């Protein structure tokens, strides 16, 4: 199939929604700041352990932003080609990939960083060769494998790293307030502590909802892109465009949940 002037608004919508969702990196900032917040519940004698964790996470931050940026920039390019516009790319992914490679996380899985770097290379090629809508299928074909790797890497961090923090925090809240209850003999003080405990637990619940939404967003982006890849030779097929439109709608809904949490 030759594209050139087809109406691919659905793909453009999906790309724009995905780009916006992937660009939302507030959870990364929360992940990096988490050990500092954990100090509220832990005895001061354990704060140095938390400081070390913060230092490690500051290093890891670049890696997480690399994945976010790779998905965001790629989706931006996808949307532009779907609208038959030129791709604009500032090689931010490359800069982040170089930064990650030079960090002490030398033993982390390099294939994920390489996947992000290959998306960068592809976007640079799209700029240099002035790709337009007729090259949309090529972009999807070449990007799908590394994009799936990058999305999976980020999703693993969200599902395990970010959500794991909340499991630990839940335990820390539990232990902290049990200790306060053990030490306090003042009924008013106990009642106040109970209120604080409830507030902290609600806060954890909110963040858990955001993490679940982020995880679902990444899963939907990966699935929808796979659908595009599987049908890359008929991107103007009406049935396909309806399916992609539906993915875009689901993504917008999830994004609202993510931002509300």
């Amino acid at each position, binding site marked *: 199939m030759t594209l050139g002037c087809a109406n691919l608004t659905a793909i453009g919508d999906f790309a724009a929604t995905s780009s916006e969702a992937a660009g939302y990196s507030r959870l990364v900032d929360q992940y990096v700041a988490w050990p500092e917040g954990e100090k509220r519940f832990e005895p001061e004698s354990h704060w140095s352990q938390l400081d070390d*964790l913060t230092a490690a*996470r500051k290093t*890891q931050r670049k890696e997480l932003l690399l994945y976010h940026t790779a998905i965001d920039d790629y989706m931006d390019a996808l949307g532009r080609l779907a609208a038959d516009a030129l791709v604009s790319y500032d090689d931010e992914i490359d800069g982040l990939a170089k930064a990650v490679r030079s960090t002490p996380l*030398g033993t982390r*899985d390099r294939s994920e960083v390489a996947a992000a770097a290959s998306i960068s290379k592809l976007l640079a090629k799209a700029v240099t060769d002035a790709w337009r809508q007729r090259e949309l299928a090529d972009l999807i074909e070449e990007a799908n494998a590394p994009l799936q790797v990058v999305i999976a890497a980020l999703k693993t961090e969200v599902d395990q*790293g970010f959500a*794991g923090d909340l499991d630990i925090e839940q335990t*820390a809240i*539990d232990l902290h307030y049990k200790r306060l209850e053990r030490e306090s003999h003042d009924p008013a003080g106990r009642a106040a502590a109970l209120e604080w405990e409830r507030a902290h637990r609600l806060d954890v619940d909110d963040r858990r909802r955001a993490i679940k939404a982020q995880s679902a967003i990444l899963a939907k982006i990966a699935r929808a892109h796979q659908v595009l890849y599987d049908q890359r030779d008929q991107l103007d097929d009406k049935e396909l465009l309806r399916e992609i439109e539906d993915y875009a709608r689901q993504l917008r809904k999830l994004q609202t949940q993510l931002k509300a949490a």
Partner: protein
Amino acid sequence: MAALTSDQAFALASRFHDAAVAVGNYLYSAKGNALSASDWNELEDAQWSILNASSDIRTTAVGLVLDEAGPSLAKLQAYTNRARIAIKKVDTAKKAIEIATSLVVLGAAVISKDPGAIASAAKGVYDAMES
């Protein structure tokens, strides 16, 4: 031996989290109430160290390469899990502290990514449970 993946690091970290919960449950049980202040404080200190080791392992243990001659990941997980169960059942404060402290040492060894320290600390957990 292949480097630890995110999934494997997370699974090991979860075992440490569960062990910290077990120590906490001990502290706030009838057995914990019967502890002397110094034993209680020592065990509480271990509980926080094990909990923090869980976060540390999840963040930093990806890529850890375990020594072929040392304990496997499966063994580390099994020891940590057995230690958690043992803490629930122990009768003496001394034993609870020994097991919890051995887990603190194992957590620190994993975070340091030192195969020798991991092997020795894993043996420490085994010894604490079996002695």
